């Protein structure tokens, strides 16, 4: 289950998709919309993507993680469109035989999603102003 969606992310379905009888560990990460980033208040976020490339890169990120850890199944779902405070923007789930691998693989996948996948968020403040976030310059 690796895809983009404009609907709320179904974390139950994602968990079910990665469970495996050979695995003792599942880690699910949810990136949720925070009200405050430092002192800046968010009213809502808008996510956009270069969709075909983003889905390809999500699959590549899962494959990269699979080269490093014995992942049985991995799922990555990223939401697009308008998200309110508390909404889940991204969900990553992996199953592995043992727990240390699951934590490491899920953290790695999130790092790579934030580096390699063409998705952007626009901060929308309570005063009506908005700004696309382009904080991290790739080296």
């Amino acid at each position: 289950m690796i895809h983009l969606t404009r609907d709320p992310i179904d974390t139950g379905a994602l968990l079910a998709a990665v469970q495996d009888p050979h695995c003792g560990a599942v880690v699910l990460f949810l990136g949720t919309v925070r009200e405050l980033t430092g002192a800046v208040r968010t009213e809502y976020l808008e996510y956009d993507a270069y969709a075909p490339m983003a889905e390809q890169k999500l699959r590549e990120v899962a494959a990269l993680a699979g080269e490093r850890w014995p992942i049985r199944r991995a799922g990555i779902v990223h939401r697009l469109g308008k998200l309110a405070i508390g909404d889940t923007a991204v969900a990553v789930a992996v199953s592995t035989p043992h727990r240390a691998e699951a934590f490491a693989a899920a953290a790695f996948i999130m790092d790579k999603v934030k580096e390699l996948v063409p998705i952007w968020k626009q901060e929308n403040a309570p005063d009506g102003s908005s700004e696309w976030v382009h904080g991290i310059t790739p080296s």
Partner: protein
Amino acid sequence: MIVHLFAGARELVGGHTVSAELPKGATVADLRQALLQVNPELAVLLARSRIAVNHEFAEDSAVVPEGAEIALIPPVSGG
């Protein structure tokens, strides 16, 4: 050659794509130069952006194939 724009780049240009004239055999670096001439308002963001050719990040030295799908990828902020 059509270049797809996203996020801040789309906002700066006021459109989803820009066109740039590129000779056959031109590189990604040439594409950057052509973009700058047509849309100088992209200068600052372009310097921080990657270029995707057929859904892969491309080095400045790479030749842009004919008919490729080109996109300007500003620093990403998903997750």
